[in-house]
């Protein structure tokens, strides 16, 4: 239903209600539609007046909806009035009303009330990120940076991931301030981005840049740039961190893969202890490999071709020179069938090592194990994103490590479009040589950023960078 444009009198509201199909929810639906259409609050007021006159009371949900309308339009005086009404009317409120009041009041000169409301919310539950966002922004707006950071740390301690808006606000409000403590806090935020592999968006990046350049006596200068494939920054010619894991990280990841992905809750779910042991001895005896291929995945690259031919092309392409190749497959590939010709399989086995798992076992787990066991130089070939295996890892830190390792070591086969008609040539997608994460050397900062706020798949990394260096 379309809300009216002007305030109506009681009788007029009554008439509208009678024409509405379910009169008992008329007010609710009407207020919802007012929120959607952003109607003037006077219209809503006239409706509430009508309700108050006919019922002598206004239900809580209607009040909250009216409050939402006021907050949406930034009617601070009205929000304060609503706060008074709610306070005397109800002993406690629920989360929706609290967050609306916090959002509304934090924009007024009564912003301290918002803080006290936040305290009240904390008593009954963990406040939402947006509640914190309103309070932090309010504190920042009134130059109470220490309070803002206190709230920020409180969020982190409650395992709430601060929104990018909060982080951006902290940079914005600290602009031009000369305070060593504050600087340390903001560097802390940048390290938080690094640790959690968060990439700022363009406007946030601009806030960071402006803040750096505004530090009195800091002499910081920022430039936007693209990093070369070699990992060198064209502006300051600094070499970015490489994407290799440290020894400790690498060992940690390998252990977790064996523990969480291969064994999990029950080794029998993905393989069997005998089979895994057999695979382990097989790998130990032939180490190290340079490339591990997921045979079944690669064999499906071209649907029109026989599966073993696809695999044959891949093995031929990769097993040149001294490259040691391991192909993982399942036992059914050995039975001579229309898709798996015995002669071709035989020929392939001369060029590469093969391991055939049971038909009901998961070969991906073996793929990960063999690659990790071979060492840091070893890469693996599959089009699979391996998301389900990543999901088996129990903590987010290891998942990040896995993603980073995957970025550096997975080769995704794609067919060259030009040569598609003639040959099935595999092109290796260059695995990233540098690590795409916020990084610093003290005198320089390199911050990758996204062009647009949303448009990025989680497996993609941004190619644009902000380079900040200190001119001494």
């Amino acid at each position, binding site marked *: 239903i379309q809300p009216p444009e002007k305030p109506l009198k009681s009788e007029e509201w009554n008439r509208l209600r009678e024409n509405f199909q379910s009169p008992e929810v008329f007010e609710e639906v009407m207020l919802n539609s007012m929120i959607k259409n952003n109607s003037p609050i006077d219209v809503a007021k006239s409706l509430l007046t009508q309700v108050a006159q006919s019922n002598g009371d206004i239900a809580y949900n209607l009040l909250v909806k009216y409050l939402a309308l006021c907050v949406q339009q930034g009617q601070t005086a009205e929000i304060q009035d609503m706060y008074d009404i709610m306070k005397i009317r109800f002993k406690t409120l629920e*989360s929706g009303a609290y967050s609306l009041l916090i959002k509304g009041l934090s924009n007024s000169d009564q912003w301290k009330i918002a803080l006290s409301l936040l305290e009240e919310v904390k008593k009954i539950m963990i406040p939402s990120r947006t509640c914190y966002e309103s309070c932090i922004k309010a504190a920042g707006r009134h130059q109470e940076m220490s309070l803002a950071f206190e709230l920020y740390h409180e969020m982190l301690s409650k395992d709430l991931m601060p929104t990018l808006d909060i982080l951006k606000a902290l940079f914005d409000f600290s602009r031009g301030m000369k305070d060593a403590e504050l600087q340390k806090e903001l560097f802390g935020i940048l390290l938080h981005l690094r640790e959690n592999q968060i990439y700022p968006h363009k406007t946030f990046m601009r806030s960071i840049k402006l803040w750096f350049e505004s530090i009195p006596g800091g002499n910081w200068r920022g430039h936007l740039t693209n990093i070369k494939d070699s990992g060198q920054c064209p502006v300051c010619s600094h070499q970015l961190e490489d994407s290799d894991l440290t020894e400790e990280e690498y060992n940690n990841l390998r252990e977790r893969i064996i523990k969480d992905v291969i064994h999990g809750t029950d080794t029998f*779910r993905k393989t069997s202890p005998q089979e895994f042991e057999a695979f382990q001895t097989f790998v130990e005896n032939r180490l190290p490999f340079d490339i591990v291929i997921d045979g079944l995945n690669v064999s499906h690259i071209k649907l029109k071709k026989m599966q073993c031919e696809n695999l044959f092309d891949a093995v031929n392409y990769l097993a040149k020179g001294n490259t040691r190749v391991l192909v993982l497959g399942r036992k059914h590939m050995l039975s001579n069938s229309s898709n798996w010709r015995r002669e071709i399989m035989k020929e392939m086995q001369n060029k590469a090592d093969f391991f055939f798992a049971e038909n009901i076992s998961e070969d991906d787990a073996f793929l990960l194990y063999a690659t990790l066991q071979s060492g840091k130089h070893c890469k693996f070939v599959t089009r699979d994103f391996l998301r389900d295996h990543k999901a088996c890892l129990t903590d987010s830190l290891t998942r990040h490590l896995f993603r980073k390792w995957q970025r550096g070591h997975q080769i995704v086969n794609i067919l060259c479009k030009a040569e598609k008609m003639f040959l099935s040539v595999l092109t290796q997608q260059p695995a990233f040589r540098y690590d795409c994460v916020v990084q610093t050397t003290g005198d320089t900062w390199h911050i990758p950023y996204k062009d647009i706020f949303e448009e990025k798949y989680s497996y993609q990394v941004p190619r644009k960078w902000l380079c900040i260096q200190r001119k001494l």
Partner: protein
Amino acid sequence: MQSANVLLKKIIRCSVLPFAAQHGMNKDLFPLSRTLSLSVCLKQDNSCSPSEKIDLDAWKKVMKSGLQEEVSETVSEPKELSALAAAREILEMWRLAGRSVPENMSDEQLKTFMECPSKSAKKKYLKYLYLKELHKKNDKKKMEEKRERKLATQEQASETDKTKNTSFVCLWASSMDRAYSWRAAQSMVFGQPLVFDMSYENDMSVREVANAVRQLVLSESSNRRSVDPFHIHFCNLKDDSLYRKEFVKHYREAWDKLLITVTDQCYTEIFPKDKLIYLTADSPKVMKTFDHDKVYIIGSMVDKSIKTGVSLARAKRLGLETAALPLEKYLLWNSGAKNLTLDQMMHILLTLKDTGDWKKALEFVPKRKYCGFVSRPVHELKKTLNLINTLKLGKTQQEVQKQFAKNYSKKLTQK
């Protein structure tokens, strides 16, 4: 009279109270001035011409004024509240805000609510309770209507004919029960065993266990009512398990009198290994015929979070043969997981045992999960399925696939 009073109070509340306050009127004086103020109010009403502005803040006065009494009530209450009472209060506010919150909650439920690890878990639990309450209410309403209708028809019936001449005493329910029990007892001696594996408690949440037991109760009852029942074995059922607790909740005293075998032993200890076949949807082998000499095992597991391969892993560990129902072969599968509920499995196995007819047996697969029985070659049916999808989605299957492939390769090149 009372309603007239309420109306009066309302009118006074909204228009007179501010007036009274302005003139320094005491609240105690109020009853005396009632008649007077009403006339004032009426007069105001008359003077209000249609062109005059509407008082937009009148409702605020109402909201603020109606409060004095209520506030004094709340103040007298003890300030410090227990955690439970506080939670109750929040729930009440949520309910007022129109969220799906049950009206009544026991202390036990409230505790479970507070122990939920996250906000979304809390929300889900509340919604579950809310829906349960709603269903209960609706059922009650329906039952009452039914009873009334029944009473009405009975009255009519008693008026029309007095007595019927029958040679049987009307004792249907109990005599049927006796017959069923007799059959079940026979099956305990001569019947083909059917094993329910009760070793999945650690893989399930409390609610999943409750659901599993409910399905088992249904299975048991349909088995009892069948012409040639199975001899049901509940294996790996520990005495202190949640399963058992739930069973006792359902069956009460009847639990000990059930004509089934309950044991904490594993099926491998009771039956020879080569006779056992573990039924699991993940099995690579597809069941062709029902074998009357084998012992089929069904895992008593409800997995809402789709834990693939759990029961297959169990069979692999014990080195048992596995089998899956030939759903793909006989049904044109549409959507939904291939794992069926325990009572559906029971129905299917009972029908197979009696008739050996797959078509009849697979009638018990929920209709929403498949489009039809495979009577023509599968590719022909796939065509009709595509047609259905085209009509439904406005897109052909191939287009969808092409779109998917395109997106997929795009993603890869972008990487």
